[in-house]
């Protein structure tokens, strides 16, 4: 049976960041070298690793990865602005970063005046399901946002769909202020360098004819820069999969589904597994 983490694809760099000089990085405690071409090699054993370029990111695997990686069909639409921002190093586990990405309740307190306001803190009920192909979807997630994106002129109710297609990756689809018929797509691909440290690769696929790449990257980095100190002050750094270890509320439905899903997939990296009774 494939290991849910070792045999998975993992993000290691934005493709555009790979130049003539090799990049040294770490994946699951293993030192790697990334080279132009692109290519990936273990620095401890010298072994070449499989690679995949997808969603603007170079992916590799320490085991035997599946043929394909999850799709983000929007990324291929011709009029989208596809950009990567980061990577941002964060001293926390990959699952803590994914849970934070799935969480709306922190918007008024961590992203005050941008993704939330202290006058609008309620998280309304939303739907969570695990689809037939094993992905978590949270739908009908609504939240009031003062500045949902750079293209937003004023505060508005924003609808989100969250998707977890990979233990350490999550994608969100949110109402697009520039075009009500479409959705902006933002993804976090967490490269677990160790059990308690990550490099977060942030990828955007946006409808925006106005702002420069730099402005769009800066917006995303500002938002994630607000999350980083919170994540780094969260203890324990590994997510406890015992659902009684922390105190969830209804708003945490997505986080609960994610913890159950990690348990069911027998993920042990970056988590505190529940003790089997």
């Amino acid at each position, binding site marked *: 049976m494939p290991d849910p983490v070792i045999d998975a694809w993992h993000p290691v760099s934005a493709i555009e960041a790979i130049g003539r000089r090799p990049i040294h990085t770490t994946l699951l405690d293993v030192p790697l070298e990334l080279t132009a071409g692109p290519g990936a090699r273990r620095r401890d054993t010298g072994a070449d690793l499989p690679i995949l370029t997808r969603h603007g990111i170079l992916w590799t695997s320490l085991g035997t990865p599946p043929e394909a990686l999850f799709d983000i069909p929007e990324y291929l639409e011709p009029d989208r602005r596809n950009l990567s921002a980061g990577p941002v190093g964060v001293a926390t586990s990959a699952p803590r970063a994914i849970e934070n990405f799935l969480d709306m309740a*922190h918007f008024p307190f961590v992203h005050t005046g941008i993704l939330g306001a202290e006058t609008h803190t*309620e998280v309304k009920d939303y739907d969570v399901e695990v689809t037939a192909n094993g992905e978590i979807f949270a739908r009908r997630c609504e939240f009031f946002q003062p500045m949902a994106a750079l293209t937003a002129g004023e505060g508005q109710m924003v609808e989100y769909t969250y998707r977890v297609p990979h233990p350490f990756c999550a994608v969100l689809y949110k109402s697009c202020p520039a075009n009500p018929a479409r959705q902006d797509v933002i993804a976090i691909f967490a490269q677990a360098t160790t059990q308690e440290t990550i490099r977060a690769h942030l990828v955007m696929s946006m409808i925006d004819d106005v702002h420069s790449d730099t402005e769009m990257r800066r917006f995303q980095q500002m938002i994630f820069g607000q999350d980083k100190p919170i994540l780094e*002050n969260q*203890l324990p750094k590994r997510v406890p999969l015992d659902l009684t270890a922390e105190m969830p509320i209804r708003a945490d439905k997505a986080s609960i589904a994610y913890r159950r899903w990690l348990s069911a997939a027998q993920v042990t990296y970056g988590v505190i597994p529940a003790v089997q009774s």
Partner: protein
Amino acid sequence: MTNWHPIASSTDLALRHVYHAKLLGQELAAWRADDGHVNIWQNRCLHRGVRLSIGLNDGTELKCQYHGWRYANRTAGCTYIPAHPENAPARRVTNRRFANFERHGLVWASLGADEDFADLPEGDWSPLRAIPVTAPAQTVLDQLAGEKLWSHALRLDIQDDRLIVIVQPLDEQTSVIRALRDGTPDDAALRRLNRILTSIRDRIEDGATP
């Protein structure tokens, strides 16, 4: 007696501040409410584990930075969960509290039973600067020659200065020297004792390096 340890100076618990303390490996969030009451709690929000020491002290409640959960002065009970503003939090949503009191300019806490505190020898005890040491408390105590008061404290005279030295164990590797001087020190005494205690710290750390 042995359960009580100083974990902060009284002045560390400044108005509307939350102080990050540590004792025997346990992280603590220490804050003074506007009514003067000192709260010493486990340094984690019950919800998602964010340190409460980065939270906000509004004078009557401590508010978590992550999701705005509020915990009351004295009871440590959660009073408000903003994501569900219409539901009162269940009573079991109460943070872990630790017994404490203030004396001689220090905040004392116990992780164990709330036992009696036998007071210090007679004196007008006034706290000196806390001196963190990268060495276990026992190593520090072994290096100080004085009359033992209890497991973590001794009486010590350095020239004309009458001192009590208490060593706070932060964790297994680190500690804090908290000394009290008999009589309010003037600037010259503060400088002199700072120099002496710092050199003791340096000597201990040099000796503790393998």
